[in-house]
């Protein structure tokens, strides 16, 4: 079943076409169809998980077909330990988001079609091993996202969508340039990421630009890094994120935070780390500093937010900082922690966004403190106990409470980064983020859920079964991985060990 | 599939032998009908009649096609022209009173200059050229014509359309679609 990745990638596309062919007015049919077509990749993902050989650090389920032979472009897909957690996460979140979007009743067909298209792009990005193919999927993803935010978003949706689109496109352009340059300067010309990684073709060469001779690998590294940094987002390229998250509909926020952000870090690991290890080593201090800035800056900004969703958005910025820190540490625990954090942040932040969405569906606003200074909610823990229960799980997972998944990855990141003598100072500074993280989340929790009941929300409806259905799997994952993270760690550790050998030679 | 049209016709053509006189008569009559009807089309002041005679002219051409071994074309000619174009024109005329009543007769002056141009200049030259051409063309050997006649034309046309002529064929389909959509859009009510 070597075509499983292709299947997973394109079944949602088939779903999209099917949905477009469905009759216009039967919204429920569209919803069910979309669920089915996201459930299939999920089932395949489970199969994938079962059959993934954790001991093998190399690529698995590889499929390699010539695509455009003249330029040596291949349809080359496969997964290793870096990508398999992401593929699983994508399949899971896509399915849950389809269910979570049940309440959307404006342009249902278009919405789901776009959504499925998005899933194709996402899974494709994680599976692609040809730079060209990767880039194609990367751009494919952009378009449905643009429409999903721009059409089904909130008040400032158009601004947010355009901002997201242009910003990301800017990154893509850099990536494209680097891609082409890599193709040109590799011998033989290739887009194949694995081949490029084996070649070490760019070390010691120089590229003359405007009369300056610039070390080629460092130039490429910076170009790629900015491209991915925008997606992560790494400070100071993060400002699209609050806008996009706040304006996007719930499910899209989930995907945005749960999957799209990870593409940036995944890309850095897949491209910068594998292909340009020397330049990565050269830039590691810089990355670490950015990571620390992300952690603290994001947390501080989150503390000042009055909009619940914006708070969660900035918390994503902060949490992605841990990923960068872990990656930059070059230690077993650090990089494992970073990839695990990618997965765990995907689940916990998805829960947060889903929960915020649930609240927004009921109350039609998300203010912690209303712009006029009055409190937005308050004391709703007594009216919606079940909801509060889920929120507590998500919240504590997010702030890194031991026993829930967020802790494991954060702790691994810190342990790992601290074991590298170069970065100990940064770790100490970065650890402030742990305190701040608890601060803004608990403060939010206090203002929204606790205290005297705001009578306006005395009759808030508690969770429906559909909403519970979307949250229960995530909650289970969060708890199980908090107690015993090996099921996910196992997947990646051998691949990461192999990746790290690159840096020991330096 | 070795047959084409009534055995007698391609027997005659296929063998290269003399065609039965009766059949030749039919062909001649068709040619005459074509031309006479065309003359009416050109000259009849009533546009409705002109259209009807156009129909006969088309039928005459169809018969000529049959005799030239193009039976599929003859069918297409009838379907498209008789069943399509003529009906379309008739519809246009009948549905819109003004078209019928607009009896814009060709005045003498209006007709004179074209007459001079066509009959005086273009006509003689073309006829002369045609005659010269038809003499100069070395006709295909009859046996080859026979072979050709014996071929299954429909199949050949089909193969040609999906083979050598695929691009023009597709172009035509797009043109047709475009033309029809355009026509509908043009003729839409205000």
């Amino acid at each position, binding site marked *: 079943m070597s075509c499983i990745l292709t299947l997973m990638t394109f079944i949602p596309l088939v779903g999209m076409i099917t949905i477009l062919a469905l009759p216009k007015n039967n919204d429920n049919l569209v919803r069910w169809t979309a669920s089915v077509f996201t459930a299939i990749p999920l089932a395949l993902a489970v199969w994938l998980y079962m059959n993934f050989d954790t001991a093998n650090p190399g690529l698995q389920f590889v499929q390699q077909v010539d695509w455009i032979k003249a330029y040596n472009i291949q349809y080359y897909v496969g997964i290793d330990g870096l990508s398999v957690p992401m593929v699983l996460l994508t399949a899971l979140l896509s399915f849950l988001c389809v269910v979570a979007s049940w309440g959307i009743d404006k342009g249902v067909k278009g919405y789901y079609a776009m959504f499925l298209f998005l899933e194709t792009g996402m899974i494709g990005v994680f599976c692609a091993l040809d730079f060209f193919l990767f880039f194609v999927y990367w751009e494919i993803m952009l378009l449905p996202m643009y429409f999903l935010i721009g059409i089904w978003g909130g008040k400032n949706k158009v601004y947010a969508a355009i901002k997201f689109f242009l910003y990301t496109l800017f990154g893509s352009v850099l990536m494209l340039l680097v891609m082409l340059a890599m193709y040109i300067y590799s011998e033989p010309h290739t887009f194949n990421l694995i081949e490029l990684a084996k070649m070490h073709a760019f070390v010691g060469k120089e590229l003359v630009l405007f009369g300056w001779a610039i070390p080629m690998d460092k130039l490429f590294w910076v170009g790629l890094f900015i491209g991915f940094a925008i997606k992560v987002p790494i400070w100071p390229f993060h400002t699209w994120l609050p806008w996009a998250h706040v304006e996007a509909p719930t499910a899209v926020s989930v995907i945005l935070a749960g999957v799209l952000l990870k593409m940036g870090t995944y890309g850095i690991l897949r491209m910068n780390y594998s292909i340009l290890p020397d330049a990565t080593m050269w830039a590691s201090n810089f990355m670490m500093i950015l990571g620390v800035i992300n952690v603290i800056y994001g947390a501080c900004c989150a503390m000042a937010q009055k909009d619940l969703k914006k708070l969660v958005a900035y918390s994503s910025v902060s949490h992605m900082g841990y990923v960068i820190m872990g990656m930059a540490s070059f230690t077993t625990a650090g990089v494992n922690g970073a990839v695990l954090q990618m997965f765990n942040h995907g689940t916990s932040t998805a829960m947060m966004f889903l929960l915020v969405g649930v609240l927004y569906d009921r109350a039609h606003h998300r203010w912690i403190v209303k712009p006029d200074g009055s409190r937005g909610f308050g004391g709703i823990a007594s009216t919606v106990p079940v909801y509060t229960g889920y929120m507590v799980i998500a919240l504590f997972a997010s702030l890194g409470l031991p026993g829930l998944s967020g802790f494991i990855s954060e702790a691994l990141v810190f342990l790992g980064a601290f074991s590298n003598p170069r970065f100990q100072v940064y770790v100490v500074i970065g650890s402030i983020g742990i305190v701040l993280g608890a601060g803004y989340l608990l403060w939010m929790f206090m203002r929204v859920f606790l205290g005297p009941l705001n009578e306006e929300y005395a009759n808030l409806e508690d969770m429906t079964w559909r909403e519970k259905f979307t949250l229960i799997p995530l909650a289970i994952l969060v708890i199980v991985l908090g107690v015993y993270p090996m099921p996910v760690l196992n997947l990646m550790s051998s691949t990461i060990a192999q990746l790290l050998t690159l840096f020991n030679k330096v | 599939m070795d047959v084409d049209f009534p055995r007698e016709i391609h027997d005659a053509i296929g063998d290269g032998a003399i065609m039965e006189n009766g059949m*030749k008569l039919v062909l001649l009559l068709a040619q005459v009908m074509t031309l006479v009807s065309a003359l009416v089309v050109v000259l009849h002041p009533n546009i409705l009649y002109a259209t009807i005679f156009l129909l006969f*002219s088309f039928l005459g051409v169809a018969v000529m096609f049959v005799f030239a071994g193009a039976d599929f*074309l003859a069918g297409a000619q009838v379907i498209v022209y008789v069943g399509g174009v003529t009906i379309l024109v008739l519809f246009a005329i009948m549905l819109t009173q003004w078209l019928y009543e607009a009896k814009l007769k060709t005045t003498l002056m*209006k007709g004179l200059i074209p007459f001079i141009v066509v009959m005086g200049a*273009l006509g003689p030259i*073309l006829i002369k050229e*045609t005659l010269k051409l038809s003499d100069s063309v070395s006709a295909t050997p009859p046996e080859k014509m026979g072979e050709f006649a014996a071929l299954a034309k429909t199949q050949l046309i089909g193969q040609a359309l999906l083979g050598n002529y695929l691009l023009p064929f597709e172009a035509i389909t797009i043109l047709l679609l475009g033309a029809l959509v355009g026509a509908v859009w043009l*003729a839409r009510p205000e």
Partner: protein
Amino acid sequence: MNILDWATSLQAYLVVGTCLFLLGVFAVLSRRNTIGILLGIELILNAAGINFVAFSKFRAAAIDGQVFTLFVILIAAAEAAVALAVILRFYRLKETINADEANILRN
């Protein structure tokens, strides 16, 4: 050569085609009614078709001529539809179908 034999010859086809063409041209030039012009154009297209078919049989003994005639027929159909739509439009604009009135492009 008697007239019946002549009727089956290439020349007969070509002459009929030419005459049809000339008649069509004459209709196009002299008709004031735009529908009349349309009819003339159909005659011209038919004339072309006859020539194609004739050469297909007598000169080439190949199918290509017929294929082209098929194309001609199809284009004629499209042309008729568009032309009639244009005439309708023209009438709405000018309240007449006199071809001479279609002179917005003058000077």
